[in-house]
Structure formats: structure tokens, C-alpha cells
């Protein structure tokens, strides 16, 4: 019986958090036009979340692409359809792996950085000092980071997919001997603009979700060392779950 009560309590707190996050999002959106005028801050945050994540994204993209190439070749070979390797890897990356894996990596690297940065500012009274100086910390600290994350995500996902396809090509064509012409022409024949756009839409939505979660957790962290640590952990966990749930919903909606 107490298990049900626990479940109910988790559900209730989950809903409360969701509601608070939506209100927080609303407050941030209200400040966004004002923040866009201080574009320098946003550029700095795009650097923080995007440019600094480039290495991990490119590295992981390369290896995911290479694994796709290898596994794909193995599996397709059983049906005698190795030439479809290009199609298979491109579609997998563009529609699913690109946006989703990038989102997970983003929340791990940039999301935790955002959450711990803001959480620490909260813990060392910096945000309170800002309020005392009549500067709303949401406008000055949260919104630029939120917008920076949203801008960075689709770009990172595109880079991930692009490098992934190159990695697949590296393994499939260079190493396993799939015909280069077939690889690219089959891909071109079956991949449509719609597929690429699906990936872009997904990565934009994931960008909004992951950035929102990171900034929210940091801003509402309990101002102790333990609190900031918990906020960082929660960022990664909640981002991962939300990303995958949204992934299913978007896939169903965009069919």
C-alpha cells in the first residue's frame, strides 16, 4: 500500500516540478526580447554551450557513425543489401541518432556546466547581490544561457550527423568495400528533405527542453555544495528522460 503512496507522491512532485518549470519558462520568454539586445552575452553562452562541446560531439559522432557503418554492413549483408548501407546510416543518423545522442551528450556536458554555474552563483550570494543591484538574475544570467543552448543544439546535431555519415562511409566504403557510388546514390535516392527537417525540428525541441531543465535546476538549487551536486545530477537524469519521451512523441507526430 505504501508503494502506491510513494508512487502517488512522486507523481505529484513530478507534476509540481513540471508546473514550476513551465512558469519559469514563461518568465524567461518574457525577458527574451530584452536579452536579445545584449547579444554579446548570448554569443558568450553559445560559445560556452556549443563551441566548447564541439570536441565531444565530433568525437562521438565519428564513432557512432563508424559503429553504424560496421553493424549496418554486418546486418545488411545477411540480406544481400550492402548497397543500402548509405541509406540506412543516413536515415538513422538524421532522424534519430543525431538529435537524440547529441541531446544526451549536450545535457551531460553543457547542461551540467550550466546547472552547476548557476547553482554556485546562487550558493555564493551572487544572484542575491544582483537582485540587490536591481538586476533580475533571470534576465541577466538565465535567459542568455537558455537562448545560447537553443542556438547551439541544432548546430551540434547537424555536425554530429554530418560527421557520423562520414564515419559510416569511412568504415563501409574504405574498410568493408561497399561500392562508393552505390553508397551515395542510394542515399540520395531515398533521403528526402523532409527527413533532414525532421531531425532539425527534433534537435530544436530537445535544445529547448535540455537548456530549460539545466537552467531551472541551477537556479532552484539548494545553495549548499550538496544542493548544487544534486541539481547537476537531476539535470542529466531529467534531460535524458524528457529527451527520449519527446523523441517518441515527435517521431509519431512527424510521420
Amino acid at each position, binding site marked *: 500500500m505504501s508503494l502506491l503512496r510513494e508512487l502517488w507522491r512522486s507523481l505529484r512532485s513530478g507534476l509540481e516540478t513540471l508546473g514550476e518549470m513551465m512558469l519559469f519558462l514563461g518568465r524567461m520568454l518574457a525577458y527574451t526580447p530584452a536579452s536579445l539586445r545584449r547579444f554579446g552575452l548570448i554569443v558568450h553562452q553559445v560559445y560556452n554551450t556549443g563551441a566548447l562541446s564541439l570536441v565531444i560531439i565530433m568525437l562521438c559522432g565519428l564513432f557512432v557513425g563508424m559503429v553504424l557503418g560496421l553493424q549496418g554492413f554486418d546486418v545488411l549483408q545477411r540480406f544481400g543489401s550492402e548497397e543500402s548501407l548509405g541509406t540506412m546510416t543516413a536515415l538513422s543518423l538524421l532522424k534519430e541518432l543525431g538529435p537524440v545522442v547529441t541531446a544526451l551528450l549536450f545535457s551531460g556536458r553543457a547542461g551540467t556546466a550550466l546547472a552547476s554555474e548557476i547553482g554556485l552563483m546562487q550558493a555564493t550570494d551572487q544572484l542575491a547581490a544582483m537582485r540587490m543591484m536591481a538586476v533580475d538574475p533571470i534576465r541577466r544570467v538565465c535567459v542568455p544561457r537558455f537562448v545560447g543552448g537553443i542556438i547551439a543544439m541544432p548546430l551540434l546535431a547537424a555536425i554530429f550527423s554530418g560527421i557520423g555519415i562520414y564515419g559510416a562511409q569511412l568504415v563501409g566504403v574504405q574498410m568493408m568495400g561497399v561500392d562508393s557510388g552505390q553508397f551515395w546514390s542510394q542515399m*540520395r535516392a531515398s533521403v528526402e528533405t523532409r527527413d*533532414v527537417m525532421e531531425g532539425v525540428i527534433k534537435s530544436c525541441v530537445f535544445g529547448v527542453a535540455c537548456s530549460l531543465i539545466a537552467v531551472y535546476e541551477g537556479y532552484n538549487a539548494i545553495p549548499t555544495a550538496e544542493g548544487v551536486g544534486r541539481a547537476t545530477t537531476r539535470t542529466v537524469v531529467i534531460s535524458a528522460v524528457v529527451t527520449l519521451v519527446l523523441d517518441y512523441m515527435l517521431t509519431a507526430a512527424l510521420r
Partner: protein
Amino acid sequence: MRQTRAIEFSTGLFALLGFAALFFLLTQITNRDIRFGETGYQLLAKFENIGSLKVGAPVSMAGVTIGRVEKIEYDNTEYKAAVTLRIEPGYNRIPDDSDAAIFTAGLLGGQYIGIGPGGSETYFKDKDQIHLTQSAIVLENLISKFLFSLAGKDKDKDQNQDAQGAEAKTQ
């Protein structure tokens, strides 16, 4: 904020890389769509069953794509599917007794329309209709036909056996 210059430069580089990747994905990976605008001419074909044919599916002759499916509608009087094809202007020597059939590309591919050339000396003009059509092969119909023919063979066999049995008895 002395680092600002370096940060702005790196960010610009990052944005450039991102957009370049996006551009690459959009142009190099996708097929060049034949924008079926107003170029070319239209042909009409009616089918009993179009299966899973979609708007935008290719129309080909001898395996070469010569056009696209532009519109799919339902004809209420003949109870058939009316498919409008848009053929590229360069392919204007299609004999007017050619047939149109719905094929499936590969094992699991999408469906497309293949036009088999006839022998007529006159060619299709804009807004003509292809009269010889063959519908898509629907798997269920195929299976039931097969089962039906099996049952038919069994019935013949039984009839033969009965006849033989009857013969044996009368002997």
C-alpha cells in the same frame, strides 16, 4: 573582457561549422527533387486499386524516371482511383496505346508507376488518358487466389478419386 574577441571568433567558427553541416546534409544527402511545377504535360490513368502509391512517386519507362504522380483522387462514377501523372516535357513520344502498371521498387520499397510502350504511331498529348492500366498487386488477394486454386485442385482430386472409386466399385 579581453577574451571577448577570442570567444566571439570561436563562436563564429562554431556557428559556421554548424550551418555548413546543415547545408551539407540538406543538399548532398537528399535527392534533387524534380519540382513538378507547371513544366511538362499531364496524363490521367484510372486504376482498380493503387495499393500504397503516393503523390510524388516516380513515373518511369524502361526504368528511367520520366515524371511524377501529381494527384490521386477517387472517381465516384467508375469507382476507380484517378491518378494524374505529370510527365517531363522532353518525353513527348509515348505511344497512345501504352499501358501503365503499378510496381513495387525492390523488396520493401515504395510503389511507382511503370509505363510499358505500345506500338501506336500517335503519341500522348496533354490531358490524355492512359486506358490500359494494371492495378497494384495486393498481397491478400494473391494469397486468397492461391488458397482458392489449392482448394480447386483438391476438389478435382476428390472428384477424380470418387470417380476412380466408383469405377473400382463397378468393376
